[in-house]
């Protein structure tokens, strides 16, 4: 999906019923707290699988990555799972591969596979 790379673009949407957090734009220091709060809100329902859809994220930095790792650690301690959806070879996919976070967190390219 083509997206204008806007400096201040960031959107996060939550679907508590389905346990899904969808993010678009820049997942960086300026916006990581918004994602953190969104994930915490969805966690309140204790979904067995929490899906974080990052396919429309154009850039993720270390602070954004940390929010994802935090969520994964909390899920593990609570007997839940976190599944991250990325576009393979996309900006987030590259970072997850570069840092080998893919070894530790379930990363899928297709949201349909996330709930499996």
């Amino acid at each position, binding site marked *: 999906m083509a997206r*204008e*790379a*806007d*400096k201040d*673009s960031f959107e996060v949407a939550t679907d508590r019923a389905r346990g899904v957090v969808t993010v678009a734009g820049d997942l*960086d*220091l300026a916006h990581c707290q918004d994602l953190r709060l969104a994930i915490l809100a969805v966690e309140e329902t204790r979904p067995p699988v929490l899906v974080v859809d990052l396919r429309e994220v154009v*850039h993720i*930095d*270390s*602070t954004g*990555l*940390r929010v994802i*790792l*935090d969520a994964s*650690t909390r899920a593990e301690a609570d007997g839940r799972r976190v599944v991250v959806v990325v576009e393979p070879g996309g900006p987030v996919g590259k970072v997850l*591969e*570069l*840092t*080998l*976070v893919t*070894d*530790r967190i379930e990363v899928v390219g297709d949201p349909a596979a996330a709930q499996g």
Partner: protein
Amino acid sequence: MIEEPSAPGEAPEAWELRESRELLDTIITCAPVGFALLDPAMRVVRANETLANIGGRSGDDLVGERAQDALPPPWGEALAGPFRRVLETGEPVDDLEIAAPSAAEPGRDHTWLASWYPVRHEGEIVAVGVFVTDISDRVRAERGLQLLFDVGEALDATLGVEERLGRLAALVVPTLGDFCTIEMLEPTGEIRVVAGDAILAGTAVDGERLIAAPLRARARDLGTLTLRMGPSGRTYDDADRAIALQLGRRAGIAVDNARLYDAQLRIADTLQRSLLPPALPEVPGIEAAALYSPMGDGVEVGGDFYDLFAAGPSWVAVIGDVCGKGVEAAALTSLARHSIRALTRDDAPPSVVLERLNASIIAERGLEARFSTVACARLVPSGSGVTATVSRAGHPPPLVVRSAGRVDPLGRPGTLLGPFAEVRLHDDAAELTPGDALVLYTDGITEARRDGEMFGEDRLRSLLRDLAGRGAEEIARAVERAVAAHHGGPLGDDLALLVLRVSP
């Protein structure tokens, strides 16, 4: 006014009239509001006690006197204008504010609200009634609030703390005093006047004419705000003292915040310097150059670091980036940099060094999501060149810049350090011949942006291709210029770059 003698057998109507006149007299006499009835020559026909007290007199004494004689100046003048208007127009004049003293409280500013109205007899104006209400307390409360508001704005201004205190001192004069002095207690114990005039020794003033309010924050006295009355002859009361205490507290918080900010700057500077080698060492056969630019205004310590040091027969170059900013990130950065030096004493390959670093971070801090990405390179002389072995822990690949103009990434991806007890790391080697360079960098370089467009890895590689064969220092400075030209504005992230070139 003539009192009718009470007559036996008085008619009920007359009795009623007398009753109501007495009632009216009582009301007028006891009213907390000053009242005067003035004849067309502005002489007092009737005045109550409240009004007479303004001049320190008694109500009955004033009868027959001209208003300007019955009351202290500037009362006569203040009453005269509206009085004439009522006579000329026949219309009342309502709610004018008069600033005039009261003999009852000579040291205070008084404000009154006055109204004038015509008194008619058979259509003719025979007198003018005047009511005056003392609204000093309300006016002073309003001025106090306004003053606190203005002072709040002055203290929030983006100026040095002493300039802000100077503004405060200027604002409170004359509302809250004829003089204002602010003294600060320096950390050395010295007392220094920072605003207003030094209070001269020997100017004896009593508590009525002086308030000394502490500049106080977090239960510590940081100085004194002194307010003093002088030529105006005014004196202070509890309401003034309450406002002065508030001002002192606000000024104290401003001083405290400024000192905290200075302390943070110093800490940030000290930490930042501990993250980097003071100077790059002389490495035989290798030219080294670095580029480092912390983000922002210097208060936030960056998480980027680099190092270059000898380890046995080889040299180790490291570059890293700790997640986040500030003192907490800097502590981890410092731990990482100094641990690596300790962990490379033997001939361990870079992947083992990074694995040990991961273990020592976890041992020191426990598993945590605040991670680091590090690239570590060991440089071993071989023949006329150097063998560079690289391991990457979540870090972008170092780039090998061949003197002939080729640029290749070196090293496979590896796990970032900190959040996981087990990491997957690799070693990858490249032979560097004279004139070749190895460039290590942090993502602050590639992620520097203009209008959302990143500098990017492609741009870096293409720039390095153009710089192939140049000296290390020249390469570092050219990258610095290109990144600065690209982002234009202030940096959103730290950036670091280390160039190691085999001497030709």
